[in-house]
């Protein structure tokens, strides 16, 4: 049984050497790190038997920047811009989780209006992230047109967020205690127009891709993970809810004003790739409902609590989590009374969602790898941090 020549140049990295003990007709396929289907820099070494996947070894760390080490050398305020760079598609969710943690440490209550702005921003960001997932997923599955329609709608959301925060993806809009700038006057008219139009746009995208016969044939019953295994892998967000588990932090551990808003939690039936796609489409519709309620009930008031200029929370620790587009985004902040945190642990959804891939993929075909990976909606910097 000859050791297949490892595709990673001379040095056989431990993973490939270990996985090459298979029979002779197997061969190793290197997917990544520069592969269109990996949404970022991530390498997967797939041991294949013909077209069927036998085993899958992910290689991580290409985008590891040691953010948790950086945080230990920066003040609480300087950390905020870094949080939206761990997951550039849901910068708002990350900002919120971190800022809420520090506010809890300070025992700070934020005005009602700030909570409403945060909900508005978070739900817009959720739709934005799901739209990009749909665009990239369509591309992976060979349908190029949904990409363009999804980005047309994304552009409208990005403009709204940009007018409020100044940034489109890495917004850095949240501050400890509220916001520097209130919502611009043009925000609500634009939002009203968007809410009026977007319902039909989601139906259009849904029909074009998720309901399409070829897409259904490639995703129904493919890449199934049961509810127990999903919870054991620590999965969260649409990937977990697809396995017949309507578990959403906005319901399980309601934060901010989600307790008083009405919306439903879509859940799949058998945890396959199609259910994960359906859940995201349905979540976009639910976000519209939330946005409408937040817009109607938007209170008057201050958009910021006067926080002290040097933030020095008392010694202690807190974990605060938010339901990001990909799942539970949590910050475990340990403070020691100085201006810099003692330790910040970031709990990121893609890290756990991705760890379930080897189990999901065993026995499926290589073409399914693209379908399954796309349905997990991975953002690689979130895995490596």
């Amino acid at each position, binding site marked *: 049984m000859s050791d297949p020549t490892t595709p990673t140049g001379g040095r056989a990295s431990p993973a490939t050497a270990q996985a090459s003990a298979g029979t002779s007709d197997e061969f190793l396929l290197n997917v990544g790190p520069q592969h269109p289907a990996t949404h970022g820099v991530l390498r997967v070494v797939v041991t294949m038997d013909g077209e069927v996947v036998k085993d899958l070894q992910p290689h991580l760390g290409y985008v590891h920047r040691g953010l948790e080490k950086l945080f230990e050398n*920066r*003040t609480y*305020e*300087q*950390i*905020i*811009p*870094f949080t939206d*760079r761990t997951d550039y598609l849901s910068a708002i969710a990350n900002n919120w989780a971190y800022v809420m943690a520090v506010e809890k440490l300070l025992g700070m209550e934020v005005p009602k209006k700030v909570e409403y702005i945060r909900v508005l921003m978070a739900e817009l960001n959720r739709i934005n992230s799901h739209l990009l997932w749909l665009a990239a997923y369509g591309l992976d599955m060979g349908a190029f*047109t949904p990409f363009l*329609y999804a980005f*047309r709608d994304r*552009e409208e959301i990005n*403009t709204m967020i*940009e*007018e*409020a*925060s*100044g*940034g489109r993806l*890495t917004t*850095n809009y949240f501050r400890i205690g509220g916001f*520097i*700038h*209130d919502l*611009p*006057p043009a925000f609500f008219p634009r939002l009203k127009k968007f809410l009026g139009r977007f319902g039909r746009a989601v139906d*259009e995208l849904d*029909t*074009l891709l998720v*309901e*399409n*016969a*070829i897409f*259904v*044939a490639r995703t*129904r019953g493919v890449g199934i993970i049961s509810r127990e295994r999903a919870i054991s892998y620590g999965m969260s967000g649409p990937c977990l809810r*697809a396995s*017949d588990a*309507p578990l959403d932090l906005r319901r399980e551990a309601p934060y901010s004003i989600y307790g008083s808003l009405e919306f*439903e*939690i*879509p*859940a*799949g*039936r058998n945890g396959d790739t*199609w*259910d994960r796609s*359906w*859940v995201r489409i*349905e979540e976009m519709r639910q976000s519209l409902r939330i946005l409408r309620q937040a817009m109607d009930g938007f209170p008057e008031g201050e958009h910021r609590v006067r926080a002290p200029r040097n933030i020095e929370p008392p010694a202690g620790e807190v974990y605060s989590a938010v339901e990001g587009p990909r799942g539970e985004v949590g910050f475990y902040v340990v403070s020691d009374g100085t201006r810099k945190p003692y330790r910040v642990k970031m709990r990121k959804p893609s890290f756990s969602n991705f760890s379930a891939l080897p189990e999901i993929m065993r026995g499926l075909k290589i073409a399914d790898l693209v379908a399954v990976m796309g349905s997990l909606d991975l953002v690689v910097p979130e895995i490596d941090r």
Partner: protein
Amino acid sequence: MQAPLAPRGIALVLSGLASLGKGLWITFSAMFRKSITVSYPEKRVVLPLRFRGRLVMPIDPDKGDNRCTACMRCVKVCPNHSIDIDKASGPDGKPLSKPASYRYNLGTCIFCNLCVETCPFFAIVMSDEHELATADPSRLVIDLAAEKYRLQGKKGSWWQKKFRGTGEEA
């Protein structure tokens, strides 16, 4: 709210064909809608007021000079040390509250706007300039004090209203 069950048998075939048809209709009807491309560079997108372009230290029309007092707060707040200030010193060697040089490293700046927010004198602001690519790395470090930047347009008036205290918190 539960996901719909997959249709069975003939219903599956019919719904499948129907979905193909609906898909084709969407792309066909899209042909008659207006294209949404903005033909850059001929036509440009109108940038919002709070757009974060390159950092600049504009000249205050009233004082004819920049408003920076070298208080070093922006240096401290910058998450990755992209700003360096050398204090100017007067003829008798005593330090003045003016910057001799204000080196801004465009290469490492992450456009997070923390420096602008912390500056008590509204000396620096993020302009609308976003075509910042250069082949020559030395042009990435800019001395904003020596640049004598003139901030015009909406952003200019918004900036001046802020430090004259008359502007609303747009």
